[in-house]
């Protein structure tokens, strides 16, 4: 479906469909472009970037768990300069809105990142205050409501054109933080980031992730994520971007019924690089089968029991 029925809005940002890639699961688009036409996506959310390049964490960084996986990449990324010089121009070859996911170790870094990316013309900036895999900054903002609100407001003042999305951690009450994000000027909130988790190899007795604790994602977390999207969306008027375990259209629709305006496909891309397109198609088929004219009619349409 390329029709207008799939269009959604995130604040001032119009998307041709509600399906995004989740940050960190689609790189900067270079690899996925070998699999499909990136302009089919609602938006391309880029791997998290920081001011300086980051090395990331030592291996092993990933391990599989029941219906899911734990990762501790540690935000390995090329840094803002290379992003602006190489990565952004690459993805600009496609007609797809670009959402930059940013992470700083202090408020100033967030502000500088946001200001420069706004200037560079990205369509939206996603504030990652919820990465469980780095030590400083990041998630500390996501867990403390005062520094969280101050950060969002400070970034808001610098961002003139891009839409501002705040990505919430599942490790704090999402209704409270979603509301604070809205009041501090965010155009949307996105959730969930990965959930802190641990798996141990009983033969070696070692943690299966070198950094011991990593973040859980995949179908296993979906029921938790859907609940959080439901709670967040009832707490705010701004749109909610739902993610956590989406691998098919039915999963995406579940998030939308719970209150999501748009959704992101994350770890499912690892199983199947075409997963985001499959989700778009299956949403279209669901709408067609039920005579739903506009996808926004699904948002928050869970019936009472």
């Amino acid at each position, binding site marked *: 479906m390329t029709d207008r029925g799939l269009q959604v809005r995130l604040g001032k940002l119009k998307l041709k469909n509600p399906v995004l890639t989740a940050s960190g*699961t689609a790189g900067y688009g270079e690899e996925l472009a070998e699999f499909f036409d990136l302009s089919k996506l609602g938006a391309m959310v880029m791997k998290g970037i920081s001011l300086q390049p980051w090395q990331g964490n030592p*291996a092993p*960084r*990933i391990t599989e768990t029941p*219906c899911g996986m734990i990762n501790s990449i540690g935000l*390995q990324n090329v840094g803002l300069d290379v992003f602006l010089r190489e990565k952004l121009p690459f993805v600009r070859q496609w007609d797809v809105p670009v959402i930059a996911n940013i992470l700083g170790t202090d408020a100033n870094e967030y502000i500088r990142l946001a200001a420069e990316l706004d200037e560079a013309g990205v369509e939206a900036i996603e504030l990652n205050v919820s990465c469980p895999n780095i030590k400083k900054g990041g998630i500390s903002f996501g867990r403390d409501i005062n520094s969280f609100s101050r950060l969002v407001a400070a970034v808001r003042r610098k961002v003139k054109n891009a839409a501002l999305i705040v990505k919430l951690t599942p490790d704090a009450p999402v209704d409270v933080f979603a509301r604070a994000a809205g009041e501090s000027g965010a155009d949307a909130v996105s959730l969930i980031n990965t959930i802190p988790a641990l798996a141990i190899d009983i033969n070696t007795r070692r943690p299966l992730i070198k950094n011991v604790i990593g973040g859980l994602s995949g179908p296993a977390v979906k029921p938790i994520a859907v609940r959080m999207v439901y709670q967040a969306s009832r707490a705010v008027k701004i749109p909610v971007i739902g993610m956590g375990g989406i691998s098919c259209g039915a999963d995406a629709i579940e998030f939308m019924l719970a209150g999501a305006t748009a959704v992101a496909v994350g770890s499912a891309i*690892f199983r199947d690089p075409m997963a985001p397109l499959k989700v778009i198609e299956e949403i279209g088929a669901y709408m067609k089968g039920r005579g739903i004219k506009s996808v926004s009619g699904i948002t928050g349409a869970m019936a009472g029991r």
Partner: protein
Amino acid sequence: MFGLNSRKDPFLKRPFCYFRKKRNTIDILYRVVGKVTTLMTGLRAGDTAEVMGPLGNCYPVEGVEGRKPIVLAGGVGIASVYPLLGALVGKAHLFYGGRTARDLLLTGELESLSSGLTLATEDGSAGFRGTAVDAVRAHLKGRDKRDFILYACGPNGMLKAASALGVDGYIASEEKMACGIGVCLGCAVRTPAGYKRACKDGPVFPIGEVLFD
């Protein structure tokens, strides 16, 4: 990358080598170690599975020149070096190690594909008693290491020991993988230039490029 359709558990695909490639089929040689490989043994004709590939790079064989190729395989690493033995047109000496004789597969066929075959088992139940790296070290003793080029595939410990032999060549990383296409950054291999991706930048790296702990 090999995965099973329609299952959410196991969630991820698994990396395997193309052991043998024919016109319409691919053979995978695998060791049953866990969830996916156990399920693979239950597959029957007509079942569907998802295969994505080929992915990543191959062992470069152009660099051989006048040097004598040594191929070093540990356990199921043999699947990876099997096509290499073909590419080296029977000129390589293969050192093939496992815990016991039972771990060593296809030894007859491998012998015919190589100029020499040295088996090594930790318990001494076949060939050299010790690791395959020990066997290579013994083989090199007193010879000029610059006359050789090494290709190694096996567990991390073996690759580390192989890298320390002082012979030029290549190793194939067996780092765990989630996506196999370069987007997750899960398969990190430490190099002097920062982490690289085993799936996309590798799995084959020049000896010395991979830093071990």
